[in-house]
């Protein structure tokens, strides 16, 4: 055990939360620790382990929330993180979190954990749903059969949490009584016993539970087979002989072991679960419509369109109020400072800080409503359906529906989208998804679209912005197809995706999710954007003596160098050159750059002077598609390496230039 900070090692109980995807592990983690990690009704929300500390009385415990796994056979990167942690960390206690409405599938992992020889407490989550479905579970009977305490809780409704904490402290300190539970038939048990005795003669079982290692060897797990390879030739051949003899009697031993686990699970289900079979399945009805072959994709796009309509309709009301507040603040600050401090300071405060930062902060309501809508879609269980219906289209480009989940996450922020590619099994699929994820327009780009759409397309703002998002999806799919057939050739990897039941959106969690994202946006406005607008203000002010924001300023010189390159796209003003350059740091900065450079001028009038509706649309397309921000660059570097990170910057910028130029040039032919 180890823990950062002041806690003494021996005082802290190490608890690991393990379970299938989408059983509410993170909700249990949040309920235990009081933290607010993101939850959602779709598999793959947690892609990295998370840690938190909680206490019960005078005892402290450290909880680790692991990505969801179906079994202890590592398959994708997120599953490997979980299994390696469970095997190597030797926690005091493992909480096997189970969706109590779906015991049969969830218990498979629990049996594996028990066979692993770790102290397991079985947590049957979603008690509220269980009761709503009229199902009851005999937890005492299950406790006797499994040899591990079984508790019924609802993390969402916060019921049973105190009892769970007490159970953690009790069993974490004292440990569970050592009883070996056997879930297999006589022939397998006999083979296991023989292999265990061979393991005890060697050094193989020093770090691992001998029974667990025996099971894995019979299952022919390649990673555990490597351990056997290191043993003496005699032990190796004896183990192989035992497995071969077993297979003569039971057939494929790995199949037999899995079947025996399921036989035990069916017995538990039959003995301890009372079901109400008369319930009408709402999920079934909804799926008939939402995943329909013809309606599925149009419904997906309709929901995306609705998201942006809500973002505009409600968000813009608040935006106008905040905008008026910043205008008042700027005027008040100017009036207060003028005459009392040098004019350059007045300009810094009014044009730089209030103008630049304020121009970005006014979009917080829109960001909030965007994430609220995304949160509702995630929380309801629709996210997996989006991947399901898009699979057909994704298959045509050589990927599969699962690749679409990171892309949808990219609508919020591209960094977690890059991280979410860890759920993909094939490395080539991961890299392709990473390369195209920046095309899914993140929330930081929304202020750019909102500003330009308000000025140039005031009557059809929602539709214009929606079209930008759709072009982003089309661009991602097109580039993925090109990569799959050229530099990243490979077979489509097969995949299984769980479709969780539809649930009413957890509004408290969803509001918190939208609030947290909005606060993060505000934080960036107060830090990164604040610094960048001061730099831009300085570039627009100096060298000394030049007019603020003129072409003679440093900003003007930099922008003028870049501007000619942008002529084919229909905008060659130097301010856009600076804005595009600064947008490489953070996309939120683009609008702030315009506001800062223009100073106390009218942004709308200036934009109308520099852009036509066509060139404004080309500019929006360029900012949608060109190089991702520094944070995304770093994430791709970390996940795929420097080569792919640099490649992303180059190819996205060239692609953006190509698309925006084509749109402007062809559009000019028709619009003059």
């Amino acid at each position, binding site marked *: 055990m180890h823990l950062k900070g002041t806690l003494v090692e021996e005082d802290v109980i190490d608890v690991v939360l393990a379970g299938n995807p989408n059983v509410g592990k993170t909700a249990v983690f949040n309920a235990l620790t009081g933290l607010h990690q993101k939850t959602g009704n779709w598999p793959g929300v947690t892609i990295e382990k998370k840690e938190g500390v909680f206490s019960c009385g005078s005892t402290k415990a450290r909880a680790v929330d692991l990505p969801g796994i*179906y*079994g202890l*056979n590592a*398959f994708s990167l997120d599953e490997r993180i979980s299994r390696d942690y469970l095997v190597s960390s030797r926690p005091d206690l493992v909480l096997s979190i189970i969706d109590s*409405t*779906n015991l*049969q*599938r969830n218990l*498979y*992992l629990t049996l594996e954990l028990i066979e692993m020889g770790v102290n397991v407490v079985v947590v049957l989550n979603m008690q509220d749903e269980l009761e709503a479905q009229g199902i009851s579970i005999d937890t005492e009977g299950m406790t006797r059969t499994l040899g591990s305490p079984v508790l019924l809780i609802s993390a969402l409704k916060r019921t049973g949490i105190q009892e769970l904490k007490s159970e953690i402290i009790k069993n974490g300190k004292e440990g569970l009584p050592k009883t070996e539970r056997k879930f297999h038939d006589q022939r397998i048990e006999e083979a296991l016993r023989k292999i265990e005795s061979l393991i005890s003669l060697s050094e193989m079982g020093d770090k691992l539970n001998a029974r667990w290692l025996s099971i894995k060897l019979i*299952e022919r*797990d390649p990673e555990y087979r490597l351990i056997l390879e290191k043993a003496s030739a005699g032990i190796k051949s004896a183990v192989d002989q035992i497995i071969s003899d077993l297979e003569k009697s039971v057939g*494929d031993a*790995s*199949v037999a072991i*899995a*079947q025996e686990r*399921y036989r035990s699970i069916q017995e538990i289900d039959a003995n301890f679960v009372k079901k109400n079979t008369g319930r009408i399945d709402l*999920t*079934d009805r909804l*799926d008939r419509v939402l*995943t329909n*072959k013809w309606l*599925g994709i149009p419904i997906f796009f309709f929901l995306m369109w609705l998201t942006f309509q809500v973002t505009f309709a409600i968000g813009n009301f608040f935006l106008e109020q905040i905008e008026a507040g910043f205008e008042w603040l700027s005027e008040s600050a100017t009036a207060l400072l003028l005459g009392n401090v040098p004019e350059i300071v007045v300009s810094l405060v009014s044009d730089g800080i209030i103008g630049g930062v304020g121009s970005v902060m006014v979009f917080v309501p829109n960001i909030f409503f965007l994430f609220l809508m995304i949160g509702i879609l995630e929380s309801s269980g629709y996210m*997996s359906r989006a*991947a*399901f*219906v898009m*699979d*057909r289209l994704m*298959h045509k480009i050589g990927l*599969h*529906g699962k690749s679409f989940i990171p892309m949808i996450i990219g609508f919020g922020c591209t960094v977690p989208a890059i991280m979410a590619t860890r759920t993909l*099994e094939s490395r080539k699929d991961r890299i392709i998804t990473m390369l195209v994820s920046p095309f899914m327009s993140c929330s930081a780009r929304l202020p750019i679209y909102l500003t330009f759409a308000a000025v140039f397309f005031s009557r059809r703002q929602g539709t214009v912005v929606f079209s930008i998002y759709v072009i982003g999806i089309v661009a991602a799919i097109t580039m993925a197809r090109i990569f799959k057939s050229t530099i990243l050739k490979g077979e*489509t*990897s*097969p*995949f*299984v*995706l*769980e*479709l*969780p*039941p539809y649930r009413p959106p957890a509004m408290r969690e969803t509001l918190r999710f939208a609030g947290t994202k909005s606060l993060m946006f505000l934080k960036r406005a107060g830090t990164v954007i604040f610094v960048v607008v001061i730099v831009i203000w300085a570039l627009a002010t100096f060298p000394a003596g030049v007019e603020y924001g003129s072409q003679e300023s440093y900003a003007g010189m930099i922008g003028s160098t870049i501007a000619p390159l942008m002529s084919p796209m229909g905008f060659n003003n130097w301010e856009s050159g600076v804005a595009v350059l600064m947008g490489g740091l953070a996309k939120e900065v683009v609008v702030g750059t315009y506001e800062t450079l223009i100073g106390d001028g009218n942004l709308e009038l200036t934009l109308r002077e520099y852009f036509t509706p066509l060139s404004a649309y080309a500019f929006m397309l360029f900012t949608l598609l060109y190089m991702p921000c520094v944070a995304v660059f770093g994430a791709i570097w970390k996940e795929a390496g420097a080569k792919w990170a640099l490649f992303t910057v180059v190819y996205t910028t060239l692609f953006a230039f190509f698309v925006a130029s084509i749109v402007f040039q062809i559009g000019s032919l028709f619009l003059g």
Partner: protein
Amino acid sequence: MSSIRKGQCKIVDISRCEAQKSKLRSVGLIENAVVDVIRGSAEGMMMLLVGKSRMGLSHFLASKILVEPADERVCFVIGGEENNAPKGHVGRRRRYRCRTGW
């Protein structure tokens, strides 16, 4: 399995899914298990009911799983035409290129 359009079927062999078989087993797609095909892979992804879990299976994966029908309602797309999605209620008319039963 990719040719099954609807109905219950018993999984016979998943050994052709070499890399995925341990995962398939842990989600309940195990030899001798009876699964309910809600939607066949001819219409995109296959949708299965495994116990109480709703699972989406890619066509590529479904085509590697060997099954046999487990109830008389099983219907399937005629071999070699998996990608031509059948229309309407299967078995009502010959032109739908599907037949019911086994």
